[in-house]
C-alpha cells in the first residue's frame, strides 16, 4: 500500500531519514516522542511536504503525483489541521458530498449523532474531544482504503480516546483490505490496534516489530548489580541503572525466564519500549 524508501528531509539541525512500509490490510503504528519526526513522515506520505531525498509511493504512485482518484481512496485526519472552524457539520456534509463521490452521508450523519456532535454549531464551539472525533469521522466518511491519522487521540481523556479507537476498529471490520497508518505518543492506544509498530526517535526508525511480538517476547528484567554482571547479555537490547540494580530490556524474555529461574521479568508494553529504546544507554 504505502512504501517509504530512504526518505530524507532536513529541517535545520533535525534530519529525518527513514524507510517504512504499510502492507495491504495492515494497521501500522508510528510511535515516538514529540518532535521525533512522526508528523513529518506522515506529511511526506501525504505529499504535503517535499522530501529532500528518497521516495514515497502509495500503490506505486509517487506521493506528490497522486491523482484525484488516488486521493479519494485515502482518508486523512491531521492533528493540527482540518476544515475551517467557522463551518458546521451541515456545511461540511455539503462540501464532502461534492468532494468525494463515495461520501456516505447516512454513515457520517449517524456517526456524528451517535458521538453527540451537534450538526448546526460552528466547530469553534466544539470541545477538543468533539473536534478530534469529527476529524476522525471525516477521514472515515468516504470508504477510504487507506486511513492516515496523525495523533488522532492527542490531548484527549481516556473515554474520548477509546471512542476514537473503537471508531477505527469498526471501520476496519467493514472491509479487511483497509489499511491504517496511525501515529501516537500514547502507545497504549496502539497496542490494542496495530499489527506492527515503528518506533521513531530523532528522525530515525529505532525499531520495527509486530505488536504481538513486542507484547509476547519483549520484557524488562529487574536484576541486582551482581546478577547483572553474570547475566548473559545476548538478547539484552538496552540496560539502565536503577536504584536496585539494573533494568534490562530484552526481546527474548522467555529465554531469560527458562535460563534464570526466579528472575523478575515484567511484561513490557510499548511505553517501556519508548522509554528504554530512546532513553537508556
Amino acid at each position, binding site marked *: 500500500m504505502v512504501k517509504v524508501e530512504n526518505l530524507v528531509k532536513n529541517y535545520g539541525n533535525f534530519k529525518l531519514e527513514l524507510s517504512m512500509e504499510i502492507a495491504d490490510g495492515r494497521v501500522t503504528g508510528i510511535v515516538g516522542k514529540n518532535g521525533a519526526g512522526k508528523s513529518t513522515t506522515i*506529511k511526506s506520505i501525504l505529499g504535503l511536504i517535499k522530501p529532500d531525498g528518497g521516495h514515497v509511493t502509495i500503490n506505486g504512485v509517487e506521493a506528490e503525483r497522486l491523482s484525484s482518484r488516488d486521493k479519494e481512496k485515502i482518508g486523512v485526519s*491531521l492533528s*493540527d*489541521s*482540518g476544515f475551517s472552524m467557522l463551518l458546521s457539520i451541515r456545511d461540511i456534509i455539503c462540501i464532502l458530498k461534492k468532494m468525494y463521490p463515495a461520501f456516505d452521508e447516512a454513515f457520517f450523519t449517524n456517526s456524528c449523532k451517535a458521538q453527540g456532535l451537534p450538526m448546526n454549531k460552528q466547530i469553534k464551539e466544539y470541545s477538543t474531544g468533539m473536534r478530534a472525533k469529527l476529524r476522525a469521522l471525516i477521514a472515515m466518511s468516504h470508504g477510504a482504503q487507506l486511513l492516515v491519522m496523525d495523533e488522532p487521540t492527542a490531548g484527549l481523556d481516556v473515554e474520548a480516546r477509546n471512542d476514537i479507537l473503537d471508531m477505527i476498529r469498526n471501520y476496519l471490520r467493514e472491509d479487511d483490505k483497509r489499511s491504517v497508518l496511525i501515529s501516537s505518543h500514547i502507545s497504549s492506544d496502539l497496542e490494542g490496534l496495530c499489527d506492527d509498530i515503528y518506533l521513531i526517535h530523532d528522525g530515525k526508525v529505532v525499531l520495527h516489530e509486530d505488536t504481538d511480538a513486542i507484547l509476547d517476547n519483549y520484557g524488562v528484567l529487574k536484576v541486582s548489580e551482581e546478577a547483572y554482571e553474570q547475566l548473559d547479555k545476548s538478547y539484552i537490547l538496552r540496560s539502565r541503572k536503577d536504584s536496585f540494580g539494573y533494568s534490562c530490556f530484552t526481546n527474548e524474555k522467555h529465554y531469560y525466564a527458562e535460563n534464570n529461574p526466579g528472575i523478575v521479568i515484567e511484561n513490557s508494553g510499548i511505553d517501556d519500549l519508548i522509554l528504554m529504546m530512546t532513553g537508556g544507554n
Partner: protein
Amino acid sequence: MRGLIEKDLRLTLVRKQTIAIFLLMALFMGLSMKGSFVVSYVTMLAMIIATSTISYDEYDNGMAFIFTMPFDRRTYVREKYLFNLIMAIGAWVFGILVYGILDLIRNNGAGLGEIPMLVTVVPCIYMVAAIMIPLQLYFGTEKGRLALAVLFGAIVVVVMAGSSVIKSSVNPLAAVAKALDGLPVAASILLVFAGAAILTGISYLCSVRIVEKKEF
C-alpha cells in the same frame, strides 16, 4: 473543483452579517449617490470577500488538511480564480440591478445607456484580485496585506513620477492617450478585457508556481 467552490461559498455564507452590512451599504450608496459608483463598489467588496477565502483556508493551519482532499495544487489555484470571477460577476449583476432600478425610478432610465460601458467594471476590478491572489498565496494573509499596501504605494509613486514627467517636458504618453481617445467604445472595452486577461494569465501562472512549491 465543485467541492472547493462549495467550500468557498460556505465560507462566504458563514459571514452573513458582514455580507448583509455590505449589501445594505450598497443600497444606501445607490440611494444617496447619483452615479454608477455603486456598481464598482459592490464588485470591489465581492472581490475582497472572495480573496479572503484564502485567509480562511490558511487560518488554524487549515491548508495541510485541504491539500489532502482529492484535487491537485493546480486545481486549488484555478478554483480561486474561478471563484473570484463568479463573485465579481454576481456582485456586478447585483450592482447593476440596484443602479438600474433606482435610475428607472429617479431618472426614467436616462442612465441605462451607461450599462454597456459599466461592463468594464468587472475586468478592471478583477485585476485587483489577480494581483491579490498570488500575493496572498506567497506571503500569507498578514504579510500579503502588507505586500499589497507596499505594492499600491509603489504604484502611486510611479504614477506620480509619471505624471510629473508628462507635465514637465515633451509628453511621451500624449500620443498614446490621443490614440485611445480616438478609439470607439467597443474597441476600448475590448482593450480593457484583453488587458485583464493577460494580467490574469500571468498572475495565474505565478500562483501555480507558488502553490506547487509550498509545503504544509
